[in-house]
């Protein structure tokens, strides 16, 4: 009999596909982290914090292991993981796009730029890394070049006086 939903290949764009290598190399590390915090009161946040620091994101296999050991539903852990902006559920993309949503940029239409990026990168606004692992999109506060607003930055390179139409062209460069 097949076991439904055991993450052998995943449709939702999470990292389940990479579960195998996580299992091999990281699961032991995840276990150490879980057991280190297990007995303290409200251990979940400490565990997730340490996952984020050690792995750079929260691998699904590590969250499942946490669910088992703490006897806490995975849906609850997922809830906590998506509540705090500090946590990410995917490894960082190859390129990081930061869009300034500070006041100056905002009034000049930065929200439209951000929405255009969401559309172009097929992100739903919750996940911040594309399925192919190429881009990570984040909103930031002032990047210090309000004169060029609206502004975004890709891996340190600044693009100013943006319009939504310019976005696809710029992305093609990467």
């Amino acid at each position, binding site marked *: 009999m097949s076991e439904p*939903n*055991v993450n052998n290949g995943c449709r939702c764009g999470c990292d389940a596909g990479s579960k195998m290598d996580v299992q091999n190399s990281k699961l032991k590390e995840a276990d150490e982290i879980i057991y280190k915090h297990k007995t303290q009161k409200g251990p979940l946040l400490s565990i997730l914090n340490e996952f984020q620091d050690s792995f750079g994101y929260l691998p699904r296999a590590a969250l499942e292991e946490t669910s088992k050991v703490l006897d806490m*539903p*995975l849906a609850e852990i997922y809830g906590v993981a998506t*509540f705090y902006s500090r946590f990410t559920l995917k490894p960082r993309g190859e390129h990081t796009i930061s869009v300034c949503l500070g006041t100056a940029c905002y009034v000049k239409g930065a929200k439209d730029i951000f929405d255009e990026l969401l559309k172009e990168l097929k992100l739903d*606004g919750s996940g911040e890394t594309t399925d192919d692992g190429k881009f990570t999109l984040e909103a930031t506060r002032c990047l210090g070049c309000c004169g060029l607003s609206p502004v975004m930055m890709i891996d340190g390179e600044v693009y100013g006086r943006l319009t939504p139409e310019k976005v696809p062209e710029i992305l093609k460069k990467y």
Partner: protein
Amino acid sequence: MDKVNVTIDGIVAAVPSDYTVLEAARSLNIDIPTLCFLKGINEVGACRMCVVEVERARTLQAACVLPVSEGMVVRTNTPKVREARKTILELILARHNRECTTCSKNLNCELQKLCDEMNIKEVPYQPYEMKVEIDDLSPCVVRDTSKCILCGRCVNVCKKVQGVGAIDFSKRGINTMVTPAFGQSLNDVACIGCGQCIKVCPVGALSEKDDTEEVWQALSNPDLHVIVQTAPAVRVGLGEEFGMEKGAPVTGKMVSALKRLGFDKVFDTDFAADLTIIEEGNELIDRLNNGGKLPLITSCSPGWVKYCEHFFPDFLDNLSTCKSPHEMFGAIAKSYYAKKEGIDPSKIFVVSVMPCTAKKFECKRPELSGTGYADVDVVITTRELARMIKQARINFAKLEDSKFDKILGESTGAGVIFGVTGGVMEAALRTVAEVVTGKELQNVEYTAVRGLEGIREAQVKIGDLDVKVAVANGTGNAKALLDRIRKGEANYHFIEIMGCPGGCINGGGQPFIMDKNEIYMSEVDRADSLYNIDRSMPLRKSHLNPEVKTLYDEYLGKPNSEKAHKLLHTHYTKRSRF
């Protein structure tokens, strides 16, 4: 309990000191509206619908979570309170996909009712457009997050009462949603399909998968012989959908309604419940005598069975191999009945009317096809049957009484009480006691296993044997019980587990109760009603059912025979807990 003096809307009273302001007010016949509150399960103060003015408090207070204190002065109906309640509803509506006329909870919706009562006439805020994404991949439960008001009841019922935790809040701010982990479909996580979340949802965000259209189509297909069976709990719930009092027994009217809908034969799952008792009782005797795996745990509740597969796979060998009664019925209908009536089994279409949403998943299990055809073709809930009766414009209350058809319609009182927690255990004991001792059992009522507490234990003398039994209802209680067995803190010979609190009478497919805080009280009425039917029956032991006897004599041979095994027994599958 100590008392404290409070004044609510000018009424001075001494109330127990552990009351909340809400409880105190209601005990004085002063109603305060609530939306998220569910006693003992969801006491989170999330919606603020229940705000009241409390003297010396700077802001309005949520009555559902505010404990009373000595000298407290409360006002529940001031301009400020009325204004706040209105604003709360208006804000909810601004973030709500309003489409009442096509909504699953139309006329059963607490939000709709409150808006009416609070005189809401317009929504003065810019509406936030809710993305409509319907998750209907599960055969049991449909989720529509565009209707969700984030009250948290489903989350806590699923987690605390059912011990599952399939859904929870995710993300934050305006993006907050109630979802399974990683935004998956309910079909792809360890949801057991029990539908308890549907029962408590105040709005139309959760509903059962509606399969009535499939039944209508079968009924209008002249090539099919369409037969229907009804579970015990349906007959003490259905009347509520037609304005009758809670628990009203409507067996005769229900049979008439089904005949009018056009079913070729109307049969009774209680018949198959008696059959289940013969098979399961003998399985128990066999395991007791021959060193089989103990405790034996009942397998008639599909929510519980799926729970066991996901969360307690180490207990799968303890599960009785008996199929649940309605599946046994299907297998017998497509073999014995088909042969006797000379009907091609491929033309027999079996509809089960159940108090249960989990049975919708169960009937799709590939292993439940003992004749080569699916034992049961479609499962509809009590609510769906009511909908069909309304659609057909049948005046239910005025229907005359009719009787179930032969040859799968006879039942005993033992079959009837399958619908309530403890009932399967009691029915089994009635039969096992007579089989083991060979003597007639005088007092058939095993009151020790009755009641509505989550877990009950008893020791029953059968012949020379002291049989230790336990009963659990609600999978959260099953978890607590099995955890104790795992740790070696308890042990039993025989355990009955029903997935829903109270048993099938409170299944996820039973009629909605508008005041959700009465859900767990209405159990009492429905349970009493089933015990009354049992008492009124001439036969109260499964093995005395004449149609079941004929079935064994003419077709199956002995209980647990090879033929019985092929048709009436099944196996289980370990599933992931995620």
